[in-house]
């Protein structure tokens, strides 16, 4: 029926994908390689081109240039084959608001070729798995954001696709629901699914993804494992707030001596911040402070945030698409 895939190892191969909306190059030459059986994270701020990239790979949008292959099948020439291999869970729940949860799942199951009885069984099974059985008959309008998201994911799993696209699966969810979603994603991978997810959260990519691509202004600006990326971003930082701000100078000297780094001081807040490469030596710093009779009001460790990732990788912070475009136009004007 079709040629044997040349690269059975790659679930997703994207080469030079481009999508232009008017004058906005939403996706501007994205290359991706996702190995089968892994979780791949696409990390970036709003408007970076994450959703557009996924839409092209999921056959929802036609690329203006470049190619995408899913398990070796071209997303344009073999769109219908690709659709049999993927499940897509969108940023906005792609389920029918007017129908109940059961009706939604039965509808999608029927469309995927299940008989009426099999469709009903499948719907019941998925609702059970996603803890939605109690709400099965309720109209979706009364569903919480988390319930919708779970139903959406359930609908993507009916055909047990080997590749699942998750577009910002936890945006807007509370921490508990978010953790549940993470568990579900991990279980999916344990069964052999490949997952391509987009996220705005560094910790989510860190928690789930084997490899991460950082995307900004439609381009991949960094790619690697979480550890590789973190190494490129820099370490966490240690924040100390002192009971007596007059001790700040002593603490600065202690940090320079023990941690061998230069801290930054915010005198008004009585706070001192230092990069923390090796957590092990922090013990020693704390002992030194005790010996010197310095009392701490607060101690915290700040992980690098997405903001810092972007600052480091792109030279600018996280900004929304509109202001980013504005900045670009200004830049163009200043060049002209």
């Amino acid at each position, binding site marked *: 029926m079709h040629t044997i895939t040349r690269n059975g190892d790659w679930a997703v191969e994207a080469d030079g994908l481009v999508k232009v909306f008017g004058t906005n190059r939403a996706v501007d030459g994205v290359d991706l390689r996702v190995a089968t059986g892994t979780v791949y994270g696409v990390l970036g701020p709003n408007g970076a081109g994450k959703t557009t990239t996924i839409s092209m790979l999921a056959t929802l949008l036609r690329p203006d240039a470049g190619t995408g292959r899913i398990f070796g099948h071209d997303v344009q020439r073999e769109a219908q084959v690709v659709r049999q291999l993927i499940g897509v869970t969108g940023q906005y729940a792609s389920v029918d608001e*007017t129908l109940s949860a059961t009706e939604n799942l039965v509808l999608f199951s029927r469309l995927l070729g299940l008989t009426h009885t099999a469709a009903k069984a499948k719907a019941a099974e998925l609702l059970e798995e996603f803890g939605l059985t109690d709400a099965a008959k309720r109209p979706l309008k009364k569903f919480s954001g988390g319930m919708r998201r779970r139903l959406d994911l359930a609908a993507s799993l009916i055909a047990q696709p080997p590749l699942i696209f998750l577009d910002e699966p936890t945006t807007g969810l509370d921490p508990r629901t978010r953790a549940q979603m993470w568990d579900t994603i991990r279980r999916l991978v344990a069964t*052999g699914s490949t997952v391509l997810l987009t996220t705005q959260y560094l910790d989510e990519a860190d928690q789930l993804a084997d490899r991460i691509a950082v995307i900004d202004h439609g381009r991949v600006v960094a790619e690697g494992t979480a550890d590789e990326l973190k190494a490129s971003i820099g370490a966490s930082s240690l924040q100390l707030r002192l009971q007596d701000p007059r001790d700040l100078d002593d603490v600065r000297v202690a940090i320079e001596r023990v941690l061998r780094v230069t801290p930054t001081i915010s005198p008004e807040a009585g706070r001192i911040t230092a990069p923390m490469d090796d957590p092990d030596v922090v013990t020693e710093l704390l002992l030194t402070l005790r010996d010197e009779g310095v009392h701490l009001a607060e101690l915290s460790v700040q992980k690098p945030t997405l903001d810092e990732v972007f600052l480091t990788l792109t030279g600018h912070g996280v900004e929304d698409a509109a202001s980013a475009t504005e900045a670009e136009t200004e830049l163009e004007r200043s060049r002209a």
Partner: protein
Amino acid sequence: MTTIATTPITPGAARSLKNRVSTSETLSHTITMAYRGLLKIKRTPEQLFDVTLQPIIFTVMFTYIFGGAIAGDVQSYLPIIIPGILVQTVISTSIVTGVQLREDMDKGVFDRFRSLPIARIAPLSGALLADTVRYLIATTLTFVMGYLMGLRPEGGLGGVIGAALLVIVCAWSLSWIFAFFGVIARSASSVQGISMLILFPLTFLSNAFVPVDTMPGWLQWFVDINPVSYIVTAVRDLVNSGTIGADFGWSLVGSAVVVAVFAPLTVKAYMRRA
């Protein structure tokens, strides 16, 4: 969450897949989509207001307003007006096809349909199929109202059923026009606006409500070529005498022409977006 953990996924490379959707699959997808349309009606019965209230209100209103002036009395106006109202009501119901199609295409669920390995055309064909149920409701209610007001069709039950089928077929054909606007328009309200602009001249500049010979000559010319006039006359023949005349044939020919023109246009525009 036991099943997820125990059912291993068949690897993508090991699956046997085809890049085409067969005709029988297309048909089955269409029927499933029509089933969705019926479920939606069941869930939001308020969207049936137009097909339930319009036949009732229009029948009563037009009959009593125009009855005396046009036919002398209400009783003798009924055989003229009921077929007219029937055609007008059912055809205006077909506007909803376009409006709902636009609303539907803007929703998130449409993205899922587009990501499923189903016939591209199924959401469109399913919607058109489900809408015939609305025509059936509107048709039945108009005849029931007519009967309650004193209409006793000379054509008998057979004539009434024949007229009902003709109207439903014609409305379905005309709904392709509105489906086309539904696909190409930017918003549901603009679909409604454009469709009304077409619908009003089409239904009122016909022989549906008043005899044609009372109109000025230039208007008679339009009324005579208006396909709605043929449908109305064909329905009157069936209801009032149980006969099938040339108008019946012309109605079907006109409907076929509309489908022949607008179905490919709609499908083409739709496929570009779907």
